[in-house]
């Protein structure tokens, strides 16, 4: 999808998915039942995946659906349902005035930050170094090629180290989660 050729089409879908994502996120934080909240979060993930696809990052969009909407949220729902936390009456996320005000303040701070950062300009030299245009067409590896290039060449050490991190986390979780000796 190219916003240079289809500006109206692009902005229509951008606002469509953006607004659905915002509304779902709002519902996610205001629902009292954890199950309903989790399902709204799945909706947010789907909308974000659509936005990624519109930005020519189809691979990341697919991963977003598979990993976040699929794996993580399903596990989340399993935990919520297995522990039987799905009853709304004894769960309340935000209590009192102060947390509401604090949450609002954090939201405003983030909004201000987005405004400030949106005005920042890339220097021309860096802008030219950022890959642009259609990665999906004419590249030998398709759109996964550049990702693989980064993952297995430039960041291969970071890639391997993240498996070490996961291993550490698994060992730690098993140690903490085991019955007391």
């Amino acid at each position: 999808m190219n916003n240079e050729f289809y500006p109206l089409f692009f902005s229509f879908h951008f606002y469509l998915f953006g607004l659905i994502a915002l509304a779902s996120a709002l519902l996610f934080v205001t629902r009292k039942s954890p199950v309903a909240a989790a399902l709204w979060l799945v909706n947010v993930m789907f909308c974000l995946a659509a936005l990624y696809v519109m930005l020519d990052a189809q691979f990341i969009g697919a991963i977003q659906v598979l990993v976040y909407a699929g794996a993580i949220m399903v596990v989340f729902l399993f935990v919520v349902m297995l522990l039987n936390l799905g009853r709304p009456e004894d769960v309340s996320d935000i209590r009192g005035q102060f947390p509401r005000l604090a949450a609002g303040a954090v939201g405003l701070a983030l909004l201000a930050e987005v405004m400030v950062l949106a005005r920042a300009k890339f220097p021309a030299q860096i802008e030219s170094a950022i890959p642009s245009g259609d990665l999906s067409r004419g590249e030998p590896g398709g759109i996964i090629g550049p990702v693989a290039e980064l993952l297995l060449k430039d960041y291969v050490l970071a890639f391997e180290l993240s498996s070490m991190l996961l291993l550490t986390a698994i060992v730690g979780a098993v140690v903490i989660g085991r019955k007391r000796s």
Partner: protein
Amino acid sequence: MSFDLLIPTQLMAALLPDIVLMVGAMVLMLYAAWRPDSVQHQRSVGMASIGLLVATLGAVIYMAWRGDTAAQGVIAVDGFRWSVDVVILIAALGTIALAIEYNIRQGIAQAEMHVLVLFATAGMMVLAAGRDLMVIFLGIEIMSVAVYVLAGFNRRSGAAAEASLKYFLLGAFATGFLLYGIALIYGATGATQLAEIASRIAEHRLWGSTMLLVGLGLLTIGLAFKVASAPFHMWAPDVYDGAPTPITAFMASAVKAAAFATFARIWYETFQLLSFAWGPVLWWLAVLSMVIGNVVALSQQNIKRMLAYSSIVHSGYLVVLVLANSAAGTAAFVFYVLAYTLATFGAFAVVSLMQEGNDEPVRIADFAGLWHARPGLAVGMSVYLLALLGFPVFGGIGFFAKWYLVVAALTSDINLVLLAVIVVVTSVISAGYYLQVIRVMFMQPRADDARSVPITGPLTKAVLATTVAVILFFGVFPTPVTAWSEWSALPRYYRTPVGGPPIAPGTLAPPPAASPAPEAN
């Protein structure tokens, strides 16, 4: 030879000690799970871990002896890395030696404790090497995740569970800052490698970029959390107090050394040109850590909390060395970290012997008359505390560490005279709590109902004897350590912004057009 880190085999060769440790740790993880938990099995896994750490130390020394270098890449191959590795491995060796006997005394049978210490050590070695913000971030996480679990390892202790959860939540919070900072720095420069970021800042004159400065600020907050420097120190006393004492020693020494090593490297190699922005921030970070840590430590009754506040003070001293931003500063950093690690380690080793139950805090009053009951321990503890204080002769290597710290602050390009004065004044104040423990040990009678101190096991004895010997020996002959730390200093180089005036040695960052901030002081 000079490694080309883009070639996989050469990258692996440059990572030799790390690979030895990681592969060994994974094998030991399987071995730990192979047999049912027992105190004996815990002991044998611990001994195997000590063997693995010695092998890794050998690999580090071999690499340092070969003196290889590397072109700019994801990891550094330089003396600074090997020196920090040596300090980290010494601390890890001590931790496991203490932990084996601590576990036997406390009846902890899970052998995974040693494996997690090895994983954390592997993460720290990555931190010491990392020259890419992604690699550094993963190193911090490998280290932190392992230490979160280690802090709560004693499942029968409520305090340990609280400490672990507190550390985890605040650590995750700090990680958020760190990652957000890295993301913004990437957004502003388009690079994650330190050298690449530095050259893009210089080339494109990015020192006025809001995004970069916000990213740098978030990165500073995240790292300040990890090294427990005030005002981001709140978690440290509770976590140090609740965690098993060998792990507290590990956190106070190795975790701090590794986090500071990467702190120093990032600032030294990358953000030279932004020193107008971070100079004042680090200046206040150092002052607050020194003042708050000292004032609160004076009123502590619990010795672990007292040592925790003392470690906050020392992180203030180390921030001074990051701020000094000179080759002498990084050399003094290595020296200081070694001295601090040995002294902190010994002090916590003595405390771990005094601990009886799981949740019973060790008070300073419990040390009353220790000289009459266990003269060896009392003398050892005095040496460690005097080393932390920086006392001449009896404090051994600690005195020279403070000496080089003050010299590095005074000879820095940045005017740090006021900070050096504060270092000296706060050191004098810290005598108030360090000497208090010594006074109690030597000048008060042992109460009749005082806790019996368990017999020191051979491993703990070895840790105590070695640290005391090293502290005192190099306190008399500091030359080898000085030469070693000078060898491991990061090289000094200046970057000239394209089209801008060359930066003359002796001046700070280029005068940025947009924000002419004053120098730190």
